[in-house]
Structure formats: structure tokens, C-alpha cells
């Protein structure tokens, strides 16, 4: 069969058992012990597709679903039609937010290893996606994030102390210990409560966006999923309802190549891109280099304009790489080559924005080092303040009785009874 060239080479069956089955199971090109080589993935240098008018017919974006919007070359030069009209201040701000996000991640990961919290999830390698995206939206646009968009909170000036308190489930935790670390909720920053259940928020975001239109307001919603979770029904619901009601929203698929231990081919199958999933629904579709903060900004701004003007939803695939383990519970060396992240051909998003800023004469190595040092210091000091408010297993802690609160708007009789039972249990 003349099936198209796939984005990933397929490996022979590794099992000791002969496989007479005709059932096809996709496998990643490289496993532990292999030497990864991504030369089959093309890194388009100057080949960003044309930038159509944001109110164009969705057809005009069909090819965008299969190409890759890029702005920054590896040498720092910005090229092509998608160069966003933003000044150096904003670019430096984006760099700062990305560096800060990474510094916080590193600290929290280390503290989890020391038993200060039950769990943590880093976003290393994906900082450009959240930060670039956030800066192209209005702060009042509601985002429905997954657990890997902490950069949006940083970009929106959320209190890092409150974020840390949430992770530590301490006495300052705005969620009073109810949720596991990183499942933030910050309505005041247009950041919807993150669900532990993958996918569910995609369609909720569409409902939120429909409500904006219903109320004749011009806010939009922006929702995120990993490429793995696109397989949930909610993804289909979101695309379908967004299309039917022309909901003003952006549906972001962060394709970081991995869903815990499963490579993106498990969710993708014979498809070619996750953005292309949107084509059949009549939605606009963009595919963007997720390690290129300016490209992410540009694609987001395009989609936000389209949504705000009544043009309906855009599916954006952010093509990137999860540079670390899935979470503190994960060891990626069990299922992919140790140096996989290093040989990934799209570089590091912080480095790339830095090189660009230097290239245009708005940044230098010293300032960058100062920024990194400053970020680390801020994080360290903020963490100290947070720890003073307690950790998951050292006081001061959340009052246990808070667990009975906020189940309903007001407590039903049964819960009052149970609270009393618990009081007696404690006094035993």
C-alpha cells in the first residue's frame, strides 16, 4: 500500500513471541537503548505558511494544519509573515515569565523530592506555549488550562506565593487542601479550576464562550489539552459544538510528543497532525512551533481576533516536546532514550527567545544571567514564605473540618451530622 510517509519510523516487533496477528500497533521510533535521530522530522526554516486574514474562510487554513508556523530561526532572526508587531519590552517580559516559570518548576520539583508536597508537574520545554499564548490574550479571557500551563499564571501576574501554597496544601492554600498540587483555580486571573480528569474542560470552555456570545460580550475562552487527551470524547464535543454555535474560543492541543509513556502516535494514528482534526469540523486550524514564543503569540493573536470578531473557533496545535518526566511520579528513562529531549530538533524555548532578543540587540548574556539569578532568588524567597505557612505534612495546616465545606452552596443536614460525627471521632 502506498500509505503516506509517516512522521515516525516504525520499529519491528520487539517481543520474543512471533506475531502472526495482522493487527497494527504503532510504536515510537526510539526506545531506551536506541540512539534517537529525528532527522526525518523536517524543521522548516523559512517555510511558514502564508498568514491569511483572521476572518478568512476556514478552508484557507487547511494547509496550516499540516505545516508549521515559525517566526524565529535558530540564529535568532525573525522571518516571515507571522512576525508579531510587539516591542522589545513585551518580548523581555515574555522571556522573564518563561525563566520564572522554569525556576519555580525546578524549585518545586526539588521540594517534592524532599517530601514537602505530595506531587508536582513541570512544564519544561513548553514554557513558550503558555507564556506566548497568555500575552496574546486579554487577561479577562478565560483560559481552561491543563496542569502544564502554569506559565499563564506567571504571565498574568498571579501570586507565586499563592501558587506555592496551593502546591503545599498549607494554611495559605486558597483551595484549603482540597485539590492535589498544581490543580490551581484563579478566577481573578481568568484561570479556570483545573480538573484532574483529562479532556473534560474542552467542552466546558465552549460553553463558557457560548455564554460570552449569548451575553453579547466580547470575551473569549481558550482551552488546552495534551495531544494524548484529544482521544477523549470531550475533544470531539468541543470541536463539534464550537463549530455548530460558532463559539468564540481557541482549542489548543499541546503536542509534547508524550502522554506519560505513550508516544503521540498512539493518539494520532494514521493522522498527520492534531490541528488537522479540526478541518473536518469546519474550524480554522493552525499548527505552530511551540518552542517559538513569537510564533505562539502570533498564532494566538490571529485566533483570538477571529474568535472575538465572530469568526468562530480555531484549533491550534502547539508542536513541542515534554523535556522532563510526566510528573514527580514518572521516570521517562523507562520508556524513551535518556537523551531524547536533547536531540529534539526544535531547541529550547527559553534559549530561542533569548537568542532572538540578543540578535535584535535588546538583550545580552549578562542580563540573561542576572535574570536567571533574580528568578531563582525570587522563587527561593517566595518558597520560604510559603513553607512558613506549612507543608502537606508539617504545620500550620488546613483545618480538617474544611473538608466538609463547599460541597454544596449550603450544607445539607447529613453533612452537618457527619461533621459532628467527625468531631467526636477526633475527641476519642
Amino acid at each position, binding site marked *: 500500500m502506498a500509505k503516506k510517509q509517516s512522521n515516525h519510523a516504525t520499529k519491528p516487533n520487539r517481543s520474543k513471541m512471533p506475531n502472526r496477528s495482522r493487527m497494527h500497533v504503532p510504536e515510537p521510533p526510539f526506545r531506551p537503548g536506541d540512539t534517537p535521530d529525528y532527522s526525518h522530522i523536517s524543521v522548516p526554516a523559512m517555510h511558514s505558511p502564508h498568514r491569511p486574514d483572521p476572518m478568512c474562510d476556514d478552508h484557507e487554513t487547511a494547509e496550516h494544519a499540516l505545516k508549521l508556523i515559525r517566526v524565529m530561526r535558530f540564529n535568532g532572526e525573525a522571518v516571515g509573515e507571522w512576525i508579531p508587531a510587539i516591542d522589545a519590552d513585551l518580548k523581555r517580559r515574555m522571556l522573564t515569565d518563561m525563566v520564572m516559570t522554569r525556576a519555580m518548576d525546578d524549585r518545586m520539583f526539588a521540594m517534592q523530592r524532599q517530601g514537602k508536597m505530595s506531587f508536582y508537574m513541570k512544564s519544561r520545554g513548553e514554557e513558550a506555549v503558555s507564556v506566548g499564548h497568555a500575552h496574546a490574550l486579554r487577561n479577562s479571557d*478565560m483560559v481552561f488550562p491543563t496542569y502544564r500551563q502554569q506559565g499563564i499564571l506567571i504571565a498574568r501576574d498571579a501570586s507565586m506565593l499563592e501558587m506555592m501554597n496551593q502546591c503545599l496544601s498549607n494554611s495559605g492554600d486558597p483551595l484549603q487542601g482540597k485539590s492535589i498540587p498544581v490543580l490551581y483555580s484563579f478566577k481573578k486571573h481568568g484561570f479556570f479550576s483545573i480538573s484532574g480528569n483529562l479532556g473534560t474542560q474542552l467542552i466546558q470552555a465552549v460553553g463558557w464562550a457560548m455564554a460570552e456570545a449569548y451575553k453579547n460580550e466580547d470575551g473569549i475562552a481558550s482551552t488546552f489539552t495534551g495531544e494524548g487527551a484529544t482521544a477523549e470524547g470531550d475533544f470531539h464535543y468541543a470541536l463539534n459544538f464550537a463549530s455548530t454555535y460558532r463559539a468564540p474560543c481557541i482549542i489548543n492541543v499541546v503536542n509534547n510528543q508524550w502522554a506519560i509513556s505513550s508516544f503521540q502516535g498512539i493518539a494520532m494514528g494514521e493522522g498527520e497532525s492534531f490541528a488537522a482534526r479540526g478541518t473536518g469540523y469546519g474550524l480554522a486550524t493552525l499548527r505552530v512551533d511551540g518552542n517559538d514564543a513569537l510564533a505562539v503569540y502570533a498564532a494566538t493573536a490571529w485566533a483570538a481576533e477571529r474568535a472575538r470578531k465572530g469568526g468562530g473557533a480555531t484549533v491550534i496545535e502547539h508542536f513541542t516536546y515534554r523535556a522532563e518526566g510526566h510528573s514527580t511520579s514518572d521516570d521517562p528513562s523507562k520508556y524513551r532514550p535518556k537523551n531524547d529531549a536533547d536531540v529534539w530538533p526544535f531547541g529550547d524555548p527559553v534559549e530561542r527567545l533569548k537568542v532572538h532578543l540578543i540578535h535584535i540587540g535588546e538583550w545580552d548574556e549578562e542580563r540573561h544571567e542576572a535574570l536567571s539569578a533574580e528568578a531563582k532568588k525570587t522563587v527561593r524567597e517566595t518558597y520560604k514564605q510559603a513553607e512558613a505557612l506549612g507543608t502537606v505534612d508539617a504545620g500550620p495546616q488546613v483545618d480538617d473540618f474544611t473538608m466538609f465545606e463547599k460541597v454544596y452552596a449550603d450544607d445539607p443536614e447529613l453533612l452537618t451530622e457527619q461533621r459532628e460525627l467527625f468531631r467526636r471521632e477526633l475527641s476519642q
Partner: protein
Amino acid sequence: MTQMSMIEAIRDAMDVCMTRDPNVLTFGEDVGYFGGVFRCTAGLQEKHGLHRCFDTPISEGGIIGIAIGMAANGLRPVAEIQFADYIYPAYDQIASEAARLRYRSNGDFSAPLTIRTPVGGGIFGGTTHSQSPEALFTHIAGLKTIIPSNPYDAKGMLISAIESDDPVLFLEPKRLYNGPFDGDHESPSVSWKGHPLGEVPEGHYTVPLGQARQIREGRQITMIAYGTMVWVAEAVADAMGLDADIIDLRSLVPLDLGAIEASVKKTGRCVILHEATRTSGFGAELSAQVQERCFYHLEAPIQRVTGWDTPYPHAQEWAYFPGPKRVRAAVELALKAA
């Protein structure tokens, strides 16, 4: 006061709320132009506009998903699921999301939506148009589950549900849409016309959630029912000349434990009725509660009268339905026992 069927009462509740509050809207499969397969939304699109009463794709998960997003964004969506048997694709959105949003965000967000859906058998709908899945929802902390048995309650409770700050599952016993039903499928159907509970006030009123309705007072036995089975209980009490306390729960969560406890402490005997499959039905919770609270007052084992532990069959519908004979047998057991 006007005469209304349960369908009209339900429609009127939505109409009243949509008229009072521009944030109220309703949608679901065939809900818009056509007005719903049971006609509960008939006329609402014409009156309130296309954007306030509209059709959705056939996607129960999607319907509840958008309702959650809308509710979190300040609207008061009323979502219809065409039959309760088709609510399962939305189970995750209801149980993991709508019911959890307030808790997991510690009150930062909430999802005050109402889900309306017809339940119960009696229309030869077979396995997929007859189910009563209430117990699957009463186990979900954060959700309210209610079920009226007559037009008056239906309207007042639906208005309460729409105005509630919590997500509410509003179950509509489809066998009662057009009239009360005593469980005898061979007798001619009765209409709500002329029935006192078909007398429904015009305009806005509420029936509070969490309060049972005492259908009649008695000292001999307590009959706890909801939905269609309320009428079967009454009919059997009449036929047997029972001096029964009959309680129409109306609200399963929150539950009116006070009413139940007071009654069983008085009568010492208790029969619980529901149409759903027996094992792990809501009758189990009621039985456990009664036994925990009234143990020393019980003079006989609490009896459960329920559907069987099988899917709801088509041709054998009336053999499955917990009709008067099954209720009578249970009452006799509850009375006979020392």
C-alpha cells in the same frame, strides 16, 4: 390557579424563569423548534428566541459540558436529556465536573445548572426508554437529585432547581406526564384535569428542595415513595384500607430525614417503593437510614418493593413494574410480622 398537566407545569416553570431572568436558557436534543419529544419546551423558542431555547447535537456529554461552562459563566442553563437512559455519556461531566467544581476550586467557581430528564417505565419503552437511574446520582456528593410526582410540585421544584446555586438533576416520571397512575395498566388512563394536584398557581412560586410531602397521615405503616410509585402506594393503601403514613420524598438529595424518622418512629413499620432495579437502588439507602435511626421502633423488617435485578424488559414490562400486587405483598409482610 390553572389546570396543568405535568408537561405544562414543567414548561411553565421554564417560561416563568426565562421571563424573569435573561440568564436562564434551555437546550437539548429536539428541544428547540419542535419543543422536545415530550413537548416540555413547546413554544419556548417562539416566545423567548432562538438563542434561549435551541437544539443541540446528539451528544449528552457535550450538552452537559456546555451547560457547565455556561453556568460557571453566570448563566442558568436548563439542559434536557431526552431519556434518562441516555444520560450515561454525560455521567463523567455530571459526576466529575458539575458536582465537583465548587469543591475542587474551594468555591472559586460553581456550576448551577439544571438537568431535566424523563425516567421510569410504563410506556413499553424496553431496556432503553424506561430506566430509573436515580441511585447512580444520589451517590455523588455535590449534586442534588429530585423527582416530583405531580404538576404542582413539578413546577415549584423546577423553579427551585433553576434558582439553586448547586447542580440539580430533575427527574420527570414520564408515566405521570399526563395524569396520575395507580399502577394498574389495564384501567383507563386518568388525566390531571380536575385533579387537585393539577391545580397550579400561575407565575412564580417554589417548592423547597429537601422537604418531603406527607401525602396522608396514618399510624399503621409508613410508605416511602417518590415519582410514579407515590400513586401506586396511595392506590394500594386505599384498596387495602390502610391507615398509612405516605411520604412522597420529592427530593432524594438532600433528603428529608426528619419526616422519615418521625413517621417510622410513629408507625414502627416501613415499606419503601421504587421502580429501579433493587440492588443498590435508592431504597437501600432509605432502608439503611430508617434502620439506623428507628431501630428500636421497628416492629417488622423494612420492606423494599422495587423493579427486579434485570434490565427493564419490553414485552414483560408489567411483570417487571412493581405494581399493586408486589406492593400489597410487601405491606402484608410488614404488617404480619410481630
